[in-house]
């Protein structure tokens, strides 16, 4: 028994020694200078580029797959598999000319046949289920000649061209896409281990001369931000893109810290179908009770942009500032008043489900929960694993409220699309007839000014009807090994590794 006592004492000493023994790592990686390890926060939901829905998956697949066109770092479209395209004046016919020298990772050249297959598969012409919902509008895909493909759509839409970033895969390969993904991107797929990560290798035949630089890229799944920090310091990760403010501060001496506004809209998403939350006054009360300025200060050191609806402030032509609706700081009086009106003078219980691998969301949840308590909204945080969140909250819609982020691609309508009553992505169950009608009008309008007006109106409806309690657009902060260069920030949520290289 005495032995056990010594063991405890020894353990106590050890733990102290361990604390003292940790000195900041230098961020040195192993001698190998042709590969890079990138830390990612979550597992991959699907390797099939048409079926993947999680932003965390798409950011990786960006390296493997390309569409006819692809987004560049300025948010403009550049030609990828297609070398040129024209859109007919009525906006109904798209004609793509293929580049001709683009090869799949398998070595085969991309033909019009592959393009036809890919677009038909994604749009649902093949088997009736549209895998990419915005492509549903495609009526037919016709092969004009070996290098020309003509796509006919049923209604004009100025934003549709962005959807042609949809991955081109070899004809007939849909069945295997999950296991052996083959694309035309700068990196080819090597292996994937669930819960561990995914390994990519250089595509030597890539059509852009000189790219990529790296021989191998590993995306390593790091479920906990604390582990990520230790991995960075220990040198087993070279790049980690999702730092919190305090982590960035801790790493700033030994790593390059790069920051840019993200394309993530963070919100306390409210399940509008919930018994309590279906009352608009309750939802508004929650919006009033939040103190966005404080959350911003606590979680991101004041570097976030507060928002009140689903649009990125970066999209200047379409964004309308609605932050005055509920105010940047808390309005407890108003919140209590609304709750009382709604029949809850003693407050309500609110469960906030949070994917616990996202440190930013977890910390925001802790801050928001505390703020809500002041207005009599007794919030309890329920941290869940990412897969559980995806299954129960996002797909199953079984939750009361959740703090997470939704990402935006280049089309301004993308974020607004999901709040239509019937949208498959409407995981908050927002239902507003006026919203649906306005969205259709926005879709139909070919004049950009008019479209922008409709979008602004949509944001207003979403904000005033409190579809969810929008919080902020957090910055994206990256730690990168000091010897790496060439990292490019995109206005979309991707990790482009093609230009990253080790400095000489």
């Amino acid at each position: 028994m005495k032995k056990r006592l010594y063991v405890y004492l020894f353990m106590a000493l050890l733990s102290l020694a361990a604390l003292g023994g940790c000195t900041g790592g230098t961020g040195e990686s192993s001698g190998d200078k042709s590969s890079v390890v990138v830390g990612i926060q979550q597992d991959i939901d699907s390797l099939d580029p048409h079926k993947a829905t999680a932003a965390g998956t798409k950011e990786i697949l960006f390296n493997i797959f390309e569409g006819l066109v692809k987004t560049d770092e300025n948010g403009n479209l550049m030609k990828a598999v297609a070398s040129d395209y024209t859109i007919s004046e009525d906006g109904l016919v798209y004609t793509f000319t293929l580049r001709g020298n683009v090869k799949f990772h398998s070595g085969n050249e991309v033909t019009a046949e592959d393009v036809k297959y890919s677009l038909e598969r994604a749009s649902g012409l093949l088997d009736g289920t549209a895998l990419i919902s915005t492509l549903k509008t495609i009526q037919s895909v016709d092969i004009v000649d070996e290098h020309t493909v003509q796509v006919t759509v049923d209604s004009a839409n100025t934003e549709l061209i962005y959807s042609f970033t949809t991955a081109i895969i070899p004809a007939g390969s849909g069945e295997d896409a999950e296991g052996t993904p083959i694309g035309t991107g700068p990196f080819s797929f090597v292996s994937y281990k669930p819960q561990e990560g995914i390994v990519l290798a250089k595509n030597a035949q890539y059509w852009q001369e000189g790219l990529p630089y790296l021989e191998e890229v590993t995306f390593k799944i790091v479920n906990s931000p604390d582990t990520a920090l230790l991995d960075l310091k220990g040198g087993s990760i070279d790049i980690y893109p999702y730092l919190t403010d305090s982590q960035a501060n801790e790493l700033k001496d030994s790593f390059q810290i790069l920051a840019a506004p993200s394309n993530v809209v963070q919100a306390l998403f409210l399940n509008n179908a919930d018994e309590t939350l279906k009352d608009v006054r309750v939802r508004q009360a929650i919006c009033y009770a939040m103190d966005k300025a404080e959350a911003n200060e606590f979680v991101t050191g004041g570097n976030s942009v507060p928002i009140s609806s689903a649009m990125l402030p970066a999209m200047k032509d379409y964004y309308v500032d609605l932050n005055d609706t509920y105010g940047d700081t808390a309005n407890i009086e108003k919140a209590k008043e609304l709750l009382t009106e709604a029949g809850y003078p003693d407050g309500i219980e609110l469960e906030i489900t949070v994917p616990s691998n996202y440190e930013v969301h977890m910390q925001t949840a802790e801050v928001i929960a505390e703020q809500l308590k002041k207005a009599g909204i007794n919030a309890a945080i329920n941290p869940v694993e990412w897969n559980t969140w995806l299954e129960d909250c996002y797909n199953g819609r079984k939750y009361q409220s959740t703090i997470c982020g939704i990402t935006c691609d280049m089309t301004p309508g993308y974020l607004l699309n999901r709040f239509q009553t019937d949208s498959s992505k409407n995981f908050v169950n927002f239902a507003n007839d006026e919203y649906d009608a306005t969205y259709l009008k926005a879709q139909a309008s070919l004049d950009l000014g008019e479209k922008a007006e409709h979008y602004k109106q949509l944001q207003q409806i979403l904000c005033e009807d409190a579809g969810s309690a929008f919080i902020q657009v957090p910055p994206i902060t990256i730690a990168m090994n000091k010897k790496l260069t060439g990292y490019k920030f995109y206005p979309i949520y991707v990790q482009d590794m093609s230009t990253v290289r080790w400095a000489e």
Partner: protein
Amino acid sequence: MMRKVKLPKIQKWNKYFTAGLIMTVIALLLAVVGLFWTPYGTTDMSAAERFHAPSLMHPFGTDNFGRDILSRVMKGMGTTIFISTLVVAGSGGAGILIGALTGYFGGILDEAIMRVTDAINGFPSILLALVVISVMGGGRQNLIISLAIVFTPSFVRIVRSEFIRLRDADYIMRARLMGVGRARILFIHILPNIFSTFWVSVMIGFNNAILAESGMSYLGVGVKPPDASLGNMLSDAQGYLMTAPWYALAPGLAIVWVVLGFSLLSEGIRRNG
């Protein structure tokens, strides 16, 4: 064979017992006071007071949300001790019941139950508790249940072996001849005689429960934020080990303090026994 029940006497208190008692009493006092009063609110955030080093205002410093760490350690200690107590009460109670029956009666039931406890013992306890929690869902209540299940076999074994040792003792034979009922023999005649052994295992079990609870909360399946427990405080503090070491030290030392206190106490009891 027959043993007299010895009660701990004051003059026989050894240094282990004294030191353990003092440490435990301080810990319990802090925890109990923490139930009713803490220097600051345990979830009160303050942007102006983030990461303040220990000072007179905040003896243990403040954390990343500007919350007072002393207050949270008090609350967290209460939570941890509360959970551990229930775990030990549950598993100890079940241990006595199952151990007494299997040890005294033996037979097929004994065989069967012992194989089950062997199976449970075969798994690392944290892993098994994780399995139970992933089936039943997280949270305080399920944490207690799962840990109680995991801790039961060790009590069963100790109680059972003591009952086997005593079931054929002369005084039990005589009691049986005199027609004393089985329940009375089990719980009035045998049970009091195994208490000194049992208490030691309770203390050790308590220690293990504290460590297990901290471990589970550290892994994020125990007590949920923003509620404080020593484990989830440690887990939160991990990211700030370099910039705010006091954040991790406070809950860490609190765990060491409580566990050491109970270890000394159990050692003291054993030496007195």
